[in-house]
């Protein structure tokens, strides 16, 4: 990141477009925390690329003043990976929902963690499909009644924390949009982590999820920072990841104490430090001659 000429403030990230989320939606807290984190990290808006999928939460890039793309359902991570590889100077943040990332896009999620691309992935997890008006999600609790599980969800509940740890994610955290200051700290740490960072956020859907409400989370969550948790221990993180009822941990679960270099620093085309987009793309005549001679 180049140091900005003037101090970057929260207002610099506020878009003229007012979010069209339902009043009280958890995603407001996700958004304001992101403004705060980016301002505190002094990221110039033009060096921030926010990439989303499809869903209520994926409208987020339209509400932040930066570069942004609102891609296809489930495909934000491949798109964001392409962005980061093409211009490694950009801070790339992915924002989407649980259906987007843990349902239709699950393969990409696992592969992106294994691939360790330097993207910070914020999942607004409301345990329901909101934009399609209230259907069951991969993170819906077993037994939960929704429009498409009227007799209760028969399927198991995906555990993104445990999955991320198993997939080799070097930075695994969970926040709660009811605690935006805490959330902003997680974002800052995630963005500063050189590699893939997952921040799953409990972001209640006030319209369609009557189970996982603000109240539900306030009664259950506790902060790992207050629990003498060792964030450098994979096994401790996995133990915490498996906790759900009656107490649910939030905060930083795991930060790899021996972080692996991210893909965008390893690819041979990217090791010069010059982003791909600014590299010379012509091939000189001598090299061209060599390429032709390979066929002779």
């Amino acid at each position, binding site marked *: 990141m180049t140091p900005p000429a003037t101090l970057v403030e929260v207002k610099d990230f506020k878009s003229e477009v007012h979010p069209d989320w339902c009043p009280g939606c958890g995603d407001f807290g996700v958004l304001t925390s992101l403004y705060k984190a980016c301002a505190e990290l002094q990221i110039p808006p033009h060096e921030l690329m926010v990439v989303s999928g499809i869903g209520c939460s994926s409208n987020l890039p*339209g509400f932040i003043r930066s570069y942004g793309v609102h891609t296809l359902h489930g495909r934000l991570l*491949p798109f964001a990976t392409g962005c980061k590889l093409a211009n490694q100077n950009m801070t790339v943040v992915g924002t989407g929902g649980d259906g987007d990332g843990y349902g239709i896009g699950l393969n990409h999620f696992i592969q992106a963690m294994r*691939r360790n691309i330097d993207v910070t992935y914020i999942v607004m997890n409301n345990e329901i499909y909101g934009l399609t008006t209230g259907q069951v999600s991969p993170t819906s609790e077993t037994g939960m009644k929704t429009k498409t599980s009227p007799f209760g969800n028969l399927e198991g509940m995906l555990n993104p924390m445990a999955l991320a740890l198993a997939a080799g994610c070097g930075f695994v955290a969970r926040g709660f949009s009811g605690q935006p200051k805490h959330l902003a700290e997680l974002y800052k740490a995630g963005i500063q982590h050189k590699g893939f960072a997952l921040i799953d956020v409990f972001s209640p859907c006030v319209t369609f999820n009557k189970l996982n409400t603000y109240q539900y989370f306030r009664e259950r969550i506790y902060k790992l920072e207050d629990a003498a948790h060792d964030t450098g221990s994979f096994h401790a993180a996995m133990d915490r990841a498996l906790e759900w009822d009656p107490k649910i941990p939030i905060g930083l679960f795991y930060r790899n104490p021996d972080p692996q270099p991210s893909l965008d620093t390893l690819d041979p085309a990217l090791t010069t430090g010059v982003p791909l987009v600014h590299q010379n*793309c012509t091939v000189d005549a001598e090299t061209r001659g060599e390429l032709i001679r390979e066929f*002779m």
Partner: protein
Amino acid sequence: MSEPEVVVGIGGAAGDGTASAGNTLVLSMARQGIAGYSYNSYQSVIRGGHSWLRLRFSAKKPLNQGDQVDVVIALNQDSLDRHLQELQPGGICLYNGAKFQPSYDPPAGVQLCGLPVPDLAPDSAKLPVMQNTVAVGAAVQLMGLGFETLASVFETTFAKKPAVVQKNVEAARNGYDYAAKNFRPLATPLHPTDQKWAQCSGNELLAMGAALAGCKFYVAYPMSPATHILEWFANHAKRLGICVRQVEDEISVVNMCIGANHMGVRAMCATSGGGFALMTEAIGMSAMFETPAVVINVMRAGPSTGVPTKTEQADLNQAFGASQGDFERVVIAPLSMGDCFVTPAVAFHVADKYQLPVLILGDLLLCEGSETVATEVLDVGFPIDRGELITTADGPRQEPYLRYKDTPSGISPRAIPGLPGYLYTSGTDEHDEDGVLLSDVFTDPIRRKKMVDKRHRKLSTILEDLPPPILEGPADAETTLLGWGSTWGVIKEAAERLTAAGVSVNHLQIKTIIPLHGDDITAVVEKSRRLIIIENNHSGQFARHLRAETGIVADGHIRKYDGEPFEPKHIVSAVSDIIDGQTIVNVLSTEPGWRTDHPTGTSGPWEGLKQVTRPGVPAKA
């Protein structure tokens, strides 16, 4: 053709070394100025089965694999039994006489050339592939060529292993000398020329052509017959500074490709039909974002998994219908391996200038097949024009920046993300000029229509930037033969033969499929009495497209969908059938070498097929 030519067929099982024997032979020819065209017919097994590599050589560049075989190199008993019967009088069959014997008498006038491989290559007991080297040496002798260029090929192939070079040169030399003493050479020897040829596959040329056109990012998932593009890029990534990634599926591939393009890099991806099916949703995203994308579909026989190692031109409908909605796309189909080299440059240019997805339709024949290309054709620097791309924040600019500005041309100046002062968000949702979504408001008919019109307006000048149809032969010919993409070379040769036989034909080949140069095509077709469309699919996908775009209804159709490519003789014969009154001629490859036992026992109704001449076919057990 008056220029002497030789078609060599190398048959063996997967793992027998047909490809490397063929490569050695082709390179040794190319290095003495003799052009070649190769097509390998193979099956989807890693070891065993049968593969049949045909190499056509001549000083006059062959444009297809031909339709007969002059020299058979049989690397196993199966190949000997299959292909011996295809030889014409004067033909030669080379094989390891110490291991194999023909199961039947050869056709009249065919020379059986059993090679005493253990005597000529003592290592062959341990290294069975040495029989290939002996046979290649013998073939070079019988084609009337010198030995030195063949030796030079071993020297470069095994540059780091002098002992291997020596063994191969000795074995080849022994085969060469043995053939001189014991066999009769071909009646029409080949002659070296001074032309410098490069020997390359369509896949390699698509890759190299893209790299020279400024491609800095290539991403793919392995899928036959497109995988070699990925391998070429992977092998050259470091040297050329290209970011090359293999990722989890074609959905990821195309989204990553568009992501890189969105940031301002020229990025490309390739796949075959099944992978392209997964990519289709994102093709519409490229159109909606107005972010360029170049996507190659190397077609193979479908539907579904289809016949993965066989060729077909049947994904045209898929290209037309890739992704929902009504949007602008370009579809181009290279005409030859050499044309594969220039096609990515055209695709990138148009994709950048008009900010839309460009699909390149190759096929297995074109992309896995190879031909010699004159080096001067490859030694060109493509001009790189990124169109209305804003890459620095230095110049004067209008405030506020409208990424999707409604301009007279429909093309909106595109700022690459990362520049101060040009912030915008792109949405797959409909959006206004500033990128702000229209989709979440109650309704906005005026803006919605404006944006659809703006994107469509880009097409008004695009034909000028795309390769027009190529007419060869007299404009006033009675019959026009029309093909698209990879059939150019085979139709061209068929048209030449028909013309030589006194049939009045010309040949119109289409490279740009969408949009279509409809006026140009109409002008040609209006002058001829009969239009025959030739395509490598069952239902006549291009014929339907032409009719939809121009109202032109063809008088005859020549189609092939049996897995094997057209040969000139198929077209010559089918044109006669159409002139005689048939409307649709479905061509079939019926040479006995294609005859294959089905896993559950039958080999298909081969009896009584047209064109079949099978002297002395051994009884199948």
